[in-house]
């Protein structure tokens, strides 16, 4: 195979990986602040994907244009979920929180199955088969737009946490729970906001991913697992780590699909997880042991 095929596949993998990274960023933000492992993460993304599919089928609205409203819907979903249910579980044992979200995940997957059926859905945008040629490189338009959108959303999130008062307050909750209570922060409200932000991230990622992949109700658990693998690989609680992990996994999957067989690509993501746990348990950009 000529070299430029590898290069093309690698660029495609990196762009898809950026979207994976945004998805994992949502998980990382929720875990970093609320300390709850969102086991329904990929399932929440499929909700966003089905909203986008329905809007496209009914009104021909482009998923990328619907990104902001759909992220807002997911934000509201996450906020209410945290406020109404998960906040009561904050002091419960870890496995109890985990199982709560497993239950949510099962209900979402099969609820979607009942409503939309088991068939795959996708969107056929006008630019679905366009591509850009840069020297020897051919980049799919859908992947380029999706990757760029992922960078924009991730940058907005970085900016929010770094430069706004609200973002600083949320970081304070993450750093010192008791301290945040002492200075008078409404921690439960901030937790709900954070869960909403994480949900919005994954909602936005869902809109982008829909340009690249089909959606079925059954894909949710796979994406949840992928998000976990990315977060653990990149390093817990590290926002750049989540993006980097996403790119690494995206690249690995793309190369595995090219060199072996696409259906075996997820095995390589699992292999990376095992290698990371063996040799660098704190993740690539993590500071302390998991």
């Amino acid at each position: 195979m000529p070299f430029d095929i590898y290069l093309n596949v690698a660029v495609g993998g990196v762009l898809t990986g950026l979207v994976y990274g945004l998805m994992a960023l949502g998980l990382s933000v929720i875990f970093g602040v609320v300390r709850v492992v969102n086991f329904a993460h990929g399932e929440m993304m499929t909700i966003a994907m089905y909203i986008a599919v329905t809007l496209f089928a009914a009104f021909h609205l482009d998923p990328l244009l619907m990104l902001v409203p759909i992220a807002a819907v997911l934000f509201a979903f996450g906020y209410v979920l945290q406020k109404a249910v998960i906040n009561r579980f904050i002091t419960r044992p870890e496995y109890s929180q985990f199982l709560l979200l497993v239950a949510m995940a099962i209900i979402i997957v099969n609820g979607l199955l009942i409503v939309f059926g088991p068939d795959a859905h996708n969107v056929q945008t006008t630019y679905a088969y366009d591509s850009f040629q840069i020297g020897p490189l051919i980049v799919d338009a859908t992947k380029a737009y999706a990757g760029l959108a992922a960078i924009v959303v991730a940058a907005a999130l970085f900016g929010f946490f770094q430069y706004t008062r609200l973002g600083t307050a949320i970081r304070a909750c993450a750093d010192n729970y008791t301290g945040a209570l002492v200075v008078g922060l409404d921690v439960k409200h901030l937790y709900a906001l954070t869960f909403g932000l994480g949900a919005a991230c994954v909602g936005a990622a869902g809109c982008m991913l829909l340009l690249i992949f089909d959606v079925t109700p059954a894909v949710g658990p796979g994406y949840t697992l992928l998000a976990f693998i990315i977060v653990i690989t990149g390093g817990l609680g590290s926002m750049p780590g989540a993006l980097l992990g996403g790119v690494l996994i995206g690249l690995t999957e793309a190369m595995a699909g090219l060199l072996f067989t696409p259906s075996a690509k997820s095995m390589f993501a699992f292999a990376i997880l095992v290698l990371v746990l063996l040799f660098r348990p704190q993740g690539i950009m993590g500071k302390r042991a998991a």
Partner: protein
Amino acid sequence: MIAGLIEGLPRRALILLGVLLVALIVAPLVAGDYLLTVLILILYFAYIGQAWNIMMGFAGQLSLGHALYVGLGAYTAAALYVNFGIGPWLGLMVAVPVAALAGAFIGFLAFRFRVAGVYFAILTIAVAEFARVGFDHLAWTSGSSGLFLPVRQYAHNDLWLLRGHPAMFYYVILAASVLALIGCRALLQSRVGYFWLAIREDEEAARSAGIDTFHYKMVAVVISAGMTSFAGVFYAFFYNNLFPEQVFHVLRSIEIILGPIVGGIGTLFGPILGAFLLTGLAEMLTSTLAALGVDLPGAKQVFYGICLLLVITALPDGVWPWLSKRIGLTERNK
């Protein structure tokens, strides 16, 4: 030995256990084929739930990948039977070490590097998923097109080759469930059992008390994996077909853990009660939907999800601790 096992149990509990056992033994005489299949399913989940409970309920290690051990057991025994004509009981001699080794691999990776709690759970899922995709591409077990055991009309029951009437399978899984219950009771009363409980309650404290936590967590995962693989062998010979997509799927792992969680994590009777409640209710739901002519493929799972949600919110310790208090039975080990 037996006196030691029943010591401390209230008389009422013993009578209740005896009645339940007798009822289960005579059940095939009165139950039709459908009911018998449901009972087999219930006992199957009671057995695996007991095995899973060793890890989570006793040693406090949350495994969400027990489908891995079921699948390894099922595939090992089935492949040996299909390819070499080796019967299930000999196959079990291979299946148990294979599953135990897989458990030891996960345990080694996790416990050596202090991967605990939710991360341990993720690792167990990841290895099970790895196996699912791997078996999809493994030609020796015919990959994703599935492995089939030859089905013939058997005039008589062949216990040695596990071929025959459902009633035979029923007694096999009933015996396994009873042995699992007795075995778990014995384990809980042993030195290892107390070490596990100490680790579950406070691992740091257990370590400072001189317990080799790595060693005892490994013991838990190996015993649990080995026990679970028998359920896999049973599954293969009862259903006669295996697909990686089905046996290794995360949903299978979740089905396994629902029984003990609903029944009561860490209790001996919880997995049994949970299996009866969940499988019984799910079958009732399925037949009601079928009678109404409604075909909703995800309905059973939504029902499972809601059950899990309700139990976790309302009865975080499970149904059995609540029920046993109500009917005046208290388990000594709880």
